[in-house]
């Protein structure tokens, strides 16, 4: 039956593009003498939240299907191991950061021993499974909350970097740029080409990122000069432009797919890192740098908009295009600046996103809806609102996994979007004007 379903899934592939992927981890649990171990619970978790579990069969096999590609923590529930067996090393019941690419089933091996694990160690703090005293549960809940909050801020600040440009483009030209997600993917993949690809120059990631951001800014400006500006000159309506951007998004995304392939890949640098730990929160240095750098860049953009001449001009054009033009501001110059900025920021966001997860051909498209949610939450066309909106989206997506299945984390962000539209369509920071 399952085989039939799988076969049909393959037959259906042309319908579903290349999105029809499922990924899993599997393995066979064996005692040191090679006999299979049955009835042991294996748990897969992401960001501290359980995403699936399985119990080993009579022949020791187990398999857990996972909600998406990414890094997972796979744990053997020590309490369910037979008394004679224990993990071969201290802490060997947990494998952290197991990367699972899209569409693949990854084999995971746990080594067991009949002796004592390792000096000083033992299966002491595993397998509690929520059965501890209530006080412990509250503490553990707070720990998990703190950890996910940090993850949420990281995710939110990446969304913000990508979405600020989307919002500014909308504010200055009225275009809802559906191809913005592809700018993000482009950033991640160009950096991959420069950094990790065998055909590229294999630059270190930091110079590769700088080159990518320069490329992204130029690419954004070229799009404006070569496509959007001529189309606006032809007097093509806003909704037509929106549909054209959908076509552009399909085009760029699938060109990237042909060049990059469907397989998600990591960068060459900073992928394997020891996590730092402060109290309940642990974070890889890479992720900390991403978060801090994103927030600094966002602060820089804010300062630029507030203090510099170019920034003030952008705000003036966003507020009232005609008034700005009649006050002597060169509107098409300002719009070009916005595209330069948006291209650079989106590609930078793409590199960060690829570093935090993996580089894949449709990462930007997957992020696009969250960017839209952030932009609408913050108020369409605002620059500061979108930053708050992004953080809300990121934190909602991550923290929801405490109570709710991790597969739905992005869905909750979108639900928040629809709810906000119901009660406050102009967004949290939008001005109360008629949008209907």
């Amino acid at each position, binding site marked *: 039956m399952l085989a039939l379903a*799988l076969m049909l899934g393959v037959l259906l592939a042309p319908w579903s593009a290349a999105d029809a992927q499922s990924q899993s981890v599997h393995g066979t649990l064996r005692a040191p003498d090679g006999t299979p171990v049955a009835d042991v619970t294996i748990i897969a978790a992401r960001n501290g939240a359980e995403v699936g579990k399985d119990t080993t069969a009579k022949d020791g096999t187990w398999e857990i299907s996972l909600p998406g590609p990414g890094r997972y923590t796979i744990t053997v529930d020590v309490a369910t191991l037979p008394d004679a067996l224990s993990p071969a090393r201290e802490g060997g019941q947990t494998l952290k950061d197991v990367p699972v690419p899209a569409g693949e089933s990854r084999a995971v091996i746990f080594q067991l021993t009949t002796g004592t694990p390792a000096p000083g160690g033992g299966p002491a703090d595993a397998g509690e499974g929520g059965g501890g005293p209530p006080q412990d549960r509250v503490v553990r809940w707070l720990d998990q909350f703190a950890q996910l909050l940090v993850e949420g801020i990281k995710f939110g600040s990446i969304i913000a970097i990508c979405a600020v440009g989307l919002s500014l483009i909308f504010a200055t030209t009225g275009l809802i740029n559906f191809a913005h997600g592809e700018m993000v993917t482009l950033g991640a993949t160009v950096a991959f080409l420069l950094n990790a690809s065998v055909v590229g120059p294999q630059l270190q990631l930091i110079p590769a990122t700088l080159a990518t951001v320069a490329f992204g800014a130029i690419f954004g400006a070229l799009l404006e000069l070569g496509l959007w500006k001529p189309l606006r000159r032809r007097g093509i309506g806003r909704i037509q432009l929106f549909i054209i951007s959908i076509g552009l998004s399909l085009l760029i995304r699938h060109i990237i797919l042909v060049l990059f392939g469907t397989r998600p890949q990591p960068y060459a640098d900073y992928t394997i890192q020891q996590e730092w730990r402060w109290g309940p929160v642990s974070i890889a240095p890479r992720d900390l740098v991403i978060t801090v750098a994103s927030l600094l860049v966002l602060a820089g953009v804010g300062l630029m908009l507030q203090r510099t001449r170019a920034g003030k001009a952008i705000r003036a054009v966003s507020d009232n295009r005609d008034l700005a033009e009649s006050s002597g501001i060169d509107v098409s110059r300002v719009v070009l600046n916005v595209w330069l900025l948006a291209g650079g920021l989106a590609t930078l966001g793409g590199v960060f996103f690829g570093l935090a997860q993996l580089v894949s051909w449709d990462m930007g498209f997957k992020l696009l809806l969250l960017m839209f949610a952030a932009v609408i939450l913050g108020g369409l066309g605002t620059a500061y609102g979108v930053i708050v909106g992004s953080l809300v989206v990121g934190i909602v997506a991550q923290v929801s996994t405490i109570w709710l299945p991790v597969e739905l984390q992005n869905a909750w962000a979108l639900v928040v979007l629809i709810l906000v539209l119901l009660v406050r369509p102009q967004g949290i920071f939008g001005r109360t004007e008629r949008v209907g």
Partner: protein
Amino acid sequence: MDFLTILGDASRAAIGPEAAIYALAAIGLNMHFGYTGLLNFGQVGFMLVGAYGVAVAVATFSAPLWAGMLIGTALAIVLALLLGIPTLRLRADYLAITTIAAGEILRYVYRSNFASPVTGGVYGLTRFADPLYALSPIPPGQYGLGRLSFSDRSLWIMVISWSVVALACALMFLIIHSPWGRVIRSVREDEDAARSLGKNVFGYRLQSLVLGGVLGAAGGMLLAVYTQAVQPDAYNPVVTFYLYTLLILGGAGRILGPVIGSVIFWFILVFTDSFLRQAVGTGLIPAGLISATEVGALRFALVGIGLMLLMIYRPQGILGDRREMMLGDR
């Protein structure tokens, strides 16, 4: 290079069940976008609830097929109301983003692990339409000439789905030429004018959303029945983009626009696909340049270019009227 094969493949796709199913879903979209001016980018969500309405009712709860179809229709109506009530008062682009978000939320929910006892999770459900195939009066076998031939099952589904398309076109003709249809088009042309005549613009838009959504769900049901399988990832946003492309190609705001658009769209899509595969296979295009698996991706890129060029140079498509497609700011 065998052009007869390529032409055969392309013609088969142009009159096959997929073309009919896409035409039906696009007729619903035509109601929204072509006649009412609603930017519904979540038509695939309606197809999904229709398809899963049938599949879940029959495969999970072993209800009869007709009950599944009723459930699918009811779900589409509920979805249209849920989407429409918050967003139809807002500017058109809000509806676009909300509908595409709603389609994705539905896909996430249907593919999730916790829903899998009901929906089958990422693998979906299979083999729930046997009673319909049992009704088929066509004796088993292959019908047609050479490459342009269909199995009895495909033929049976083609008969059903093209009949439904014909019915839907007739229904649309009657509706659009009724007083209701005139109000709908006046809402598209000038919302304020319609309002000043005392028409409840919001109400009319909501009715249009429901009607087109039900047609979309019907397309989803036929797709589920035809493939005897539902799988959540088949209902991704790209399907809606396909529908827009073929609708605009045929001519939005015309009764036969989606039908002609769907036939031509599938012909071109499969023609290029088959041509590229043959070209790679016979070495006309060196295999190092594009592999056979990448041809599938290239055709999506082609749809993207097609959509851009159509929107720039001929937004009214083959049948449409340019004046009706001056989609301005609202």
